[in-house]
Structure formats: C-alpha cells, structure tokens
C-alpha cells in the first residue's frame, strides 16, 4: 500500500546517523521511514518495514493496549519515554523506552508522527556483564571513547609529558588527572590540585610559586607554593583557560625551563613536577581570539585528552547510577535496592548539563527523598522532567525536525561539516545547501585547525 507524504519526512540517511531507533509513520500508522538503529532493535529491515503498520514491526506490549502514537494523534501532545517490552524478529524480548510526537507540514496540518525508541535491554545486559572490565582507577565507563582513553592511559602516565584535559564541567577532569598520577612512576609523590579559576589572579602567582619573607607587606616568613609542594609528584592546574596573560608567561617558563622563582627570591628553584592542565573552555578558540598564548597552548598540548560530556555517553548512566547507589548506601547506611525503569528512562532522556557530577547530585537527592525500595520518578528533581517537555524529534514541522537532526549530527562531529556530511551519508555540498536553506547558525569547526 502506498504511504503518504513519504518525501516530506527527513531523509533516511539523516535518520540513519541516529543511535535511537526512529520510525516515522503517516496518519494511518503506516511506516514511512525506518532508520538503521530501528532495523537493529527490531530485527526487521527497512525495506520490509516501510509500508507496513508500525504495530506489526514494533511488536510491543504497548501497541495494542496503550499505543503512544495513537495517543499523540488524539491529544496532539508528545509522549515521552514510555517503557514497554517488544519481541524482535528473532523472538528476543527487549525492554524499550518509546517517545512519540506529531509531524506537521508547513501549513500546520498533521501529516504523521515520529516514534523514537531506545533499547534499554542493551544497557541492562552491559550492566549485568560486570563493570570492572570497564573501569580505570575511579573512572567508570563503557563508552567507546572512554575505553580508548583507558587503553592509552598507562602509556600516558608513564611518559612524564604534560597533559591537557579538555571537557565540560563535571566530566571528571580531576579524576582523570588523579588516575594518570596514580598510574605514573610519580604515584608515591604528592598530587596537588589547583583551581586557577577559583583563586583571584593577584593571589594565584604567590599560590603557585610561593614567596620569600619580605617579598611584600605581611610576608613575614617563606611560604612554599603549590609547585614546591608538588615536587616529585604531579600538579593539576584546573581551569587553565582562566589564567591571566602575565601568569601565562610565568607558567610557560616553568614548562620550558623546568625552573621557577618564588616571589621576592633571586634564586631559581628546579621544578621536578609533572603538569596536568585542564579546562572546560576551548583553548584553541581562546588562542584564535588572542586570549591565550599560543606558545603556552602548544607546551600544554603535548598529550590532549577530550572527555566526552555525559549526554554523549548515555550508555554509562545505568552503571553510574548503580555505582552511586552502592556508594550512598554505604555512606548513608541505607538499603536502596536500585532505580525503576521509568526513573531510569527519565535519566536516559535528560541532557545533564552538569554531567556526571549532576547525576551524582541527583542520586544523592533521591536518597533523601526515597526511604527504601527503588528510586522512582517522584524522587527525581524537576529539571529532569522539564527537559521532557521538549522531546528531541517532535512535535514539529519537517523543517524543524530536519534542522534538529542536522544540528545533532554536527554537534557529535565537533561542527565539522565534512565529517557530518560523511556521517549522514550525504555530499558536503548537500549539507551546506541544507544548512543554508534551514537557516542554521553553525559555529566554526573545533577540528579544523588540528594538526596544523
């Protein structure tokens, strides 16, 4: 049977780049688009699925009793993260989380709907496989990028080279720096952490390098700086992007010459210190703007590690939740048995602007709200629910959905048009045309200058 408005939906190649299963249907529930992830989860090929009703392909317990798509058509409101069970074409039972929204044409007429679904069984299986194999020191992750980092970490730790860690706030930059220190030959030496952004610039210099008695008023005796305290060990300079230009020059000298002078001293002190710097800013962009010294950047950027934000490694959420529950049970002498599917689905859909730290805080808060048994949606903060009000793929016009898909793909590829076009399976010029036609405001690529 022919399907309606097929060409009006985002193209298959764009949908294929998504990790979640996506099924677009017309108003008669016939499948119009079916992405690659949907093929994997359902075990049904797109060529077999397109034109059939969604219930025949999705085969979930929701289809015939509580169909999310039917509800969306009836109410006009999106359905978010309804947890259900499906049986795939191989007869395997999978737990899925389903969201649905309507799709309108440019005149506002409903032409169909989009259902996105995530296989929660997959994360459940991974959770049951044991998390030890995927942990490094105190860092826990099953994400492929993080596992690559775990693999290179021993070699990085051994090398004694300066390391630059880039990542959003709460991604575990200090945890990574500690892991490098603990794996390194300096592990028996001190690990000294300094948050450069938290100390006023006027004090930071004396804090880092120390001072001699008489260097300034009230400097009655010598005070060792953090570099001195870190002798034989590692110094972790967090928020390095916030350091003033004057101090950048002094840091450059330490990194180049391995010596520094405390304030008021005429003698240089050898710095037997490994430097690990971290920032939540894009240092390369700061260099471009002239706010950060290029020579210091290259001195720091010997080994660069990018920590992905939690929203890009959502598969870690279940194991991190388990980890935090176990920890807070131990610390607070409670017996919370876990988190229920609905609450986990809400967390899986949340973007975590505060990353792992925010997740940890959410679980700590849930421990206050939940006396025993499992953590439920009512124990989660409002912010988690507010994000549900704007589902990723609906409702919206075709243009809006396509714009969101393209922006998501660009974000995942660090705004590189070439890599995004490759990931979407379209020609670069097609992507440029779409960006222009959709009026997307795309920031410059953060990868374009690498290797220059």
């Amino acid at each position, binding site marked *: 049977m022919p399907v309606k408005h097929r060409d009006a939906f985002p193209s298959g190649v764009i949908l294929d780049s998504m990790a979640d299963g996506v099924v677009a249907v017309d108003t008669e529930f016939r499948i119009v688009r079916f992405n690659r992830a949907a093929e994997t989860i*359902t*075990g*049904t*090929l797109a060529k*077999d*699925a397109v034109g*059939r009703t969604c*219930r*025949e*392909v*999705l*085969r*979930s*317990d929701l*289809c*015939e*009793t509580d169909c999310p798509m039917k509800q969306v058509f009836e109410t006009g409101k999106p359905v978010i993260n309804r947890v259900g*069970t*499906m*049986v*795939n*074409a*191989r*007869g*395997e*039972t999978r737990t899925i989380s389903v969201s649905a929204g309507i799709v309108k044409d440019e005149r506002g007429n409903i032409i169909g709907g989009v259902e996105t679904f995530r296989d929660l069984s997959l994360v459940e299986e991974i959770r049951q496989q044991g998390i030890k194999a995927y942990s490094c020191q105190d860092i826990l992750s099953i994400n492929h990028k993080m596992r690559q980092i775990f693999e290179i970490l021993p070699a990085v730790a051994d090398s004694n080279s300066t390391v630059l860690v880039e990542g959003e706030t709460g991604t575990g930059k200090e945890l990574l720096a500690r892991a490098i220190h603990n794996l390194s030959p300096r592990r028996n030496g001190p690990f000294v952490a300094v948050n450069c952004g938290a100390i006023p610039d006027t004090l930071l210099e004396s804090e880092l390098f120390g001072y001699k008695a008489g260097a300034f008023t009230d400097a009655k005796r010598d005070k060792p700086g953090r570099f001195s305290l870190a002798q034989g060990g590692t110094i972790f300079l967090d928020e390095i992007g916030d350091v003033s230009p004057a101090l950048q020059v002094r840091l450059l000298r330490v990194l180049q010459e391995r010596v520094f002078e405390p304030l008021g001293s005429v003698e240089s002190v050898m710095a037997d210190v490994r430097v690990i710097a971290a920032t939540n800013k894009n240092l390369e962009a700061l260099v471009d703007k002239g706010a950060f010294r290029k020579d210091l950047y290259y001195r720091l950027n010997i080994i660069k590690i990018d920590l992905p934000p939690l929203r890009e490694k959502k598969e870690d959420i279940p194991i991190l939740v388990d980890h935090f529950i176990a920890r807070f049970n131990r610390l607070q002498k409670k017996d919370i048995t876990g988190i229920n599917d609905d609450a986990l689905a809400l967390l899986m859909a949340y973007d975590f602007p505060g990353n792992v730290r925010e997740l940890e805080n959410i679980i700590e808060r849930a421990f206050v709200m939940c006396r025993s048994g499992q953590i439920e949606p009512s124990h989660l903060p409002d912010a988690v629910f507010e994000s549900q009000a704007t589902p990723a793929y609906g409702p919206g016009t075709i243009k809006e959905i396509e714009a969101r898909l393209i922006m998501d793909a660009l974000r995942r590829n660090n705004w590189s048009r070439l890599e995004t076009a490759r990931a979407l399976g379209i020609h670069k010029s097609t992507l440029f045309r779409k960006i222009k036609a959709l009026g997307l405001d795309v920031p410059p690529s953060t990868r374009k200058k690498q290797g220059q």
Partner: protein
Amino acid sequence: MHVAGERMEGRIMRVAIPVYGDQVATVFDFAQRLNVYDVDGMRVTGKAEVDMADVLVPVRAFRLKDLGVDLLICGAISRDLAAMVVHSGIEVIPFARGMADEVLGAFLMGALTDTRFAMPGCRAGQRWLRQRRRMRRKW
C-alpha cells in the same frame, strides 16, 4: 507435524489464534484475547473466544494446554514462551499476520506461506522454531 503449506484434509484438531480485534495479535505474549477453533479437516466446526488479559506470560503455555490446543498460529512470540509452548506438545506457527479467520482459512488451504500472511522481516525467524521442534523430539 503440521506444515504451513500442507492442506488439512481429514484431520481433527483445535487451533488457537491470539487476536486484536479481528486481526492476529502482533505478539502472543501480550495478546488480550484468543480465538480457539475446532477444525475437522477443512471445516471449522466450532469457535470460542478466550480472555487472556490476566494470564501471565509464563502461564500462557499451560493455559493453551488446559484448553486442549494442538496448534498455535500467532504473530511474534518470545523464544522463552515458544519453547514452553512447544515443550507442552503444542505446535507453533509464528509470525503470522492478517485477519484471524483469513489466516485460519489460509492455513487450512495450505496457503499460509503466502507472503501477505507473514509479519515483515520475520521469515528467517521461523528457523529457530524448527530447531525447537527437533529439540522436543529429543526431550
């Protein structure tokens, strides 16, 4: 053994088809209702409707056995439940779709292998059920 492409002349049996409205339910595990047909050769001699809404998945195989079902024709079915049904001595033809009465008619005529009665992308999925049937003989 019953084969989907074999005509059912001269055989008496009880056939169950889980339904959603008049159609074959997409998944037997979650089906709310079951049509039970008595078949004498090519003729349907009786039809009853059974409520399955409160029958838990692990109990469904026993329920079929209590009903005296010989053959289950259904949409999708989970491997575990299929194994239980087969182990109970009931044969299974999975991944069927369409109007329940038409599906039964097609089965009786030996035409159930027609692609219009097959769930999308599920033909390959039947293989594991044949393996299960072989396993039953071993048990």
